[in-house]
């Protein structure tokens, strides 16, 4: 179980949220709502363990994630605003490079398959800088899929730049992850339908 206990945080001089509480069980999804600048990204980054809240704790299986350290990090699959792709390398090279550093064993065949599943079979040898925003997003999503054993998916605006068919593909993947007992925390400005109705957390 993933829990937020009395989390308070400021950014610069502005208090973003105070005394936030929620809990998430296996097979549950959480949609974080709020206007731009309200602190959604900050909350997600706290859940990833990048930032420390001013007060309160994030707990995984009743242990503070800061105490768990790498044991928690290894469970997180994160996609933020930046796709972590090197412009001069091809999609394939990018995934080989980043997955090897993450300790996720992946051969070229698996990577190619994941990229083809994202409809990128014609773009395998193209430097990523020449792909459109949507295509880059799909490369990042391919990486997400390859590391899908990681149970906690934290996605910040994953649907941005995606066309209709890619959006449906992603929704299906998210629904599948949740119904397999995964955890999902995401933000989006669009109307997205998942098989499982998500819990909603609004920050104001």
């Amino acid at each position: 179980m993933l829990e937020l206990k009395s989390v308070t945080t400021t950014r610069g001089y502005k208090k973003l949220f105070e005394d936030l509480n929620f809990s998430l069980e296996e097979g549950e999804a959480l949609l974080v709502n709020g206007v731009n600048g309200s602190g959604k990204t900050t909350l997600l980054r706290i859940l990833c363990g990048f930032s420390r809240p001013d007060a309160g704790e994030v707990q995984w299986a009743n242990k503070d994630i800061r105490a768990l350290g790498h044991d928690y990090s290894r469970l997180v699959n994160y996609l933020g605003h930046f796709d972590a792709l090197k412009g001069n390398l091809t999609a394939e090279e990018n995934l080989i490079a980043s997955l090897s550093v993450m300790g996720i064993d992946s051969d070229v065949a698996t990577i190619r398959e994941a990229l083809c599943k994202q409809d990128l079979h014609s773009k395998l040898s193209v430097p990523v800088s020449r792909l459109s925003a949507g295509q880059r997003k799909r490369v990042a999503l391919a990486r997400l899929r390859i590391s899908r054993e990681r149970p906690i998916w934290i996605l910040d605006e994953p649907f941005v730049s995606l066309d209709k068919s890619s959006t449906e593909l992603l929704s299906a993947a998210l629904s599948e992850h949740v119904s397999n007992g995964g955890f999902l925390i995401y933000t989006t400005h669009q109307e997205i339908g998942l098989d499982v109705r998500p819990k909603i957390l609004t920050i104001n």
Partner: protein
Amino acid sequence: MSSRSLFLAVLLREFKISLTQKTDIATIFFFFLIVASLFPFAVGPDTGSLRTVGPGVVWVAALLSSLLALHRMFEGDFIDGSLEQFLLSGEPLVLIVVSKIFAHWLFTTLPIVILSPFVGMQFGISSEASWIMALTLLIGTPVLSLIGSVGAALTLGVRSGAALTALLILPLYIPVLIFGVGGTVAALQGVETTGHFSILLALLCLSLALCPLATSAALKIALE
């Protein structure tokens, strides 16, 4: 994942990225040559005076080139989000950092070290002393990269980054500079150099032990 395979995985990644950034690396290399070449214009072409300033000039030029190249170490990964993924990899950040620093030194600074004896000879330094100078650079420039990595990590995403990084780490470069040039001058005078090399090696060991820790901490702070 074993330490060795992580180290190699990061090294390989940096190598592939560096292959696509050959121009950047060449620019730093030529910067070294240009800076060293400025001094004869400033000091005069007289071989005697050039020989006196030579070791210092080559070392300072190498030092400044190392400084200039620092932004390549973490900035790219910081901007595109790769650094965040490193943090979430579950692998020790310290090891990733050591590998990145080594890769940075290998691809950016080693060419300068290899070229340095020839620049030394341009300044009238004897060939034996030039090779000693190259050896001091071989041991000293990794120390510069290690100390520099702390500065680079602290100033990620900060305005006036390059000038600020220089201000922060140039004072810390002074001991390496003193003993690097000291060793070269001793060689020029035909005096014992083992003392200088011992200290350079000691500085290398110390910075290898401490700097990656400081750099990792600084990277985490930059990502908060």
